[in-house]
């Protein structure tokens, strides 16, 4: 059990309560201590990680595949990541020794024939010992299976457990756990790997290969995006969520409309009858996996945090700087919910107007 340091700095709130100040006990130099570099000086073998990027970044699932490759790699193995789609971030903390980017192969474009042919070309030139891919729905699961069908390598899909010797995956309708020796192509299920690495890597860029031409069998007729209000909360990409600290729900609805976001709520709001039960997020409500989650006036009780564990970017607006949601959020803004929402609505309208 982790013990709380009794000497932590405190702050007195307006109501006279003593509250511990979060994050004040980390010295800046400690937080930025550089991690040792893992990248091998004299590489002998290579493993390949393949993943689509989303909006210029690798998502958590893709980073888990990369982390698995980096953790399992020995001192003479290079971890090369092949990013399909644009990449605007540095992957050294994620464990990539080499990065190759093929920006034309974005996941929103349907071109499995081009992707597979380019992939086979990369594999031919790099001769990786093993291939890791996230088994997701944005194209990697599909591409990985196409690759498996075109190769004679040993494979495993939906891998929930992996180590240096073996992998395991659920079979027979998730009723049994089956294991096999570590295969050459590994399609990882989500959350099978911890992305915390005690090392970083060089992340040197390598030149991309030429793309192959399309076979003409497939044609992409374009994306259809439905407005956030029409889709189920579980599928929403942007959620604005109301908590007990929201006095005026109509302001929140306006904000959600402006951001084209779906509306969620904490249990208190739903119990009060302000929003229907199907909007409740949390342990007894829905588990959401939005890319952006804006929590307004939500304290962040564990039951609520359980429902948002898969959200990538959490932004909190709260009056209380010691609320548990602040610990979870990537950005927290301390202040009155109503005032900040109104300001946000105004600023968004201004930004949209300037853009148009």
């Amino acid at each position, binding site marked *: 059990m982790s013990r709380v340091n009794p000497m932590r700095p405190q702050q007195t709130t307006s109501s006279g309560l003593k509250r511990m100040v979060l994050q004040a006990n980390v010295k800046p130099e400690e937080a930025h201590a550089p991690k040792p570099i893992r990248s091998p000086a004299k590489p002998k073998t290579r493993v390949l990680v393949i993943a689509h990027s989303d909006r210029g970044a690798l998502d958590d699932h893709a980073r888990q595949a990369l982390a698995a490759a980096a953790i399992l790699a020995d001192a003479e193995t290079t971890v090369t990541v092949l990013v399909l789609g644009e990449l605007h971030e540095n992957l050294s903390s994620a464990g990539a020794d080499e990065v190759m980017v093929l920006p034309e192969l974005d996941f929103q474009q349907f071109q499995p024939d081009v992707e597979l042919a380019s992939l086979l070309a990369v594999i031919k030139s790099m001769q990786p010992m093993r291939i890791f891919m996230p088994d997701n729905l944005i194209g990697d699961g599909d591409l990985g299976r196409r690759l498996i069908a075109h190769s004679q390598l040993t494979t495993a899909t939906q891998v929930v457990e992996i*180590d240096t010797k073996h992998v395991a995956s659920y079979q027979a309708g998730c009723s049994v756990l089956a294991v096999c020796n570590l295969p050459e192509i590994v399609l990882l299920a989500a959350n099978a790997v911890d992305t*915390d690495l005690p090392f970083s890597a060089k992340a040197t860029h390598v030149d991309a290969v030429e793309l192959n031409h399309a076979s003409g069998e497939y044609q992409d007729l374009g994306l259809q*995006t439905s407005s956030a209000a029409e889709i189920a909360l579980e*599928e929403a990409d942007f959620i604005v969520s109301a908590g007990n600290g929201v006095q005026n729900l109509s302001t929140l609805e306006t904000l959600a409309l402006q951001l084209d976001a779906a509306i969620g709520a904490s249990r208190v709001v739903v119990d009060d009858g302000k929003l229907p039960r199907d909007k409740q997020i949390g342990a007894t409500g829905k588990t959401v996996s939005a*890319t952006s989650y804006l929590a307004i006036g939500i304290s962040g009780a564990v039951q609520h945090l359980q429902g948002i564990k898969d959200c990538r*970017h959490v932004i909190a607006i709260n009056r209380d700087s010691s609320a548990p949601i602040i610990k*979870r959020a990537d950005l*927290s*803004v301390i202040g009155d919910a109503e005032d900040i929402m109104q300001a946000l609505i105004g600023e968004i309208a201004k930004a949209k107007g300037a853009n148009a």
Partner: protein
Amino acid sequence: MSLQRIAVLVSDGKNPVSGEARHCRNDSLALQVGLNLVPDLTVLHAGNADNPALQDYLALGASHIDVVPTNGDMVESLAAQLQNVDLILTGTRAENGEDSGLLPYLLAAKLNLPLVAGALEITQSGNHLEILQFLPKGQRRRVRVKLPAVVVVHPLAAVELCHVHARQILGNITAHPATNSAVHHTPWRIDTPRKPIKLKAPLVQTGHERLMAAITSKNKGGTVVNDGNCVEKAQVILNFLREHRLINY
């Protein structure tokens, strides 16, 4: 070319609680999608003709089911039955066997056909199919694929299943003569039931580091903005969204 022969691959499912044999819902959806395109389908099952699960498929609209044995290479024996077929429909993931979702891909590679996964709706236009494809986060994509093709139907496909007892009585099942149901070349062994272990990087720490880790909590939270007026705070949020490309204005 028109859609004349559509083949649907069905597997046997089981009730997750009682373990009783029943149809696999994902495959029944593929069957119904096929029935909406043409009234008469070739329905193919690799396994045992006595399986009570097959009765369900008869009731759900298959008038006839061909059963191929699974000893030997399953992809091989299915492919042998699937020559000259215009469209092969399958469900997304079976409820027994390896559950790897690999079968349609192996079959498409074997027969050298294009494959589209995650189909929600299928319409025919000339010698192409237009498919509404599922993507996460509420996105859908329209794609066109040349026939003949393999199409994997998504579990969210909006078709209604209709169970008719009369069809179950009228339908029939044919077992084909022979030509372990391993799908790919990976040897799996069943392990004792347990929770999977998450892979973590081994951490080498000195005693002092471990002590500090135990008495201080990790700096987990993100940036906290305390200062400024509302407009400045709203700007901070907008900048955060812009920086991560979550909005495009």
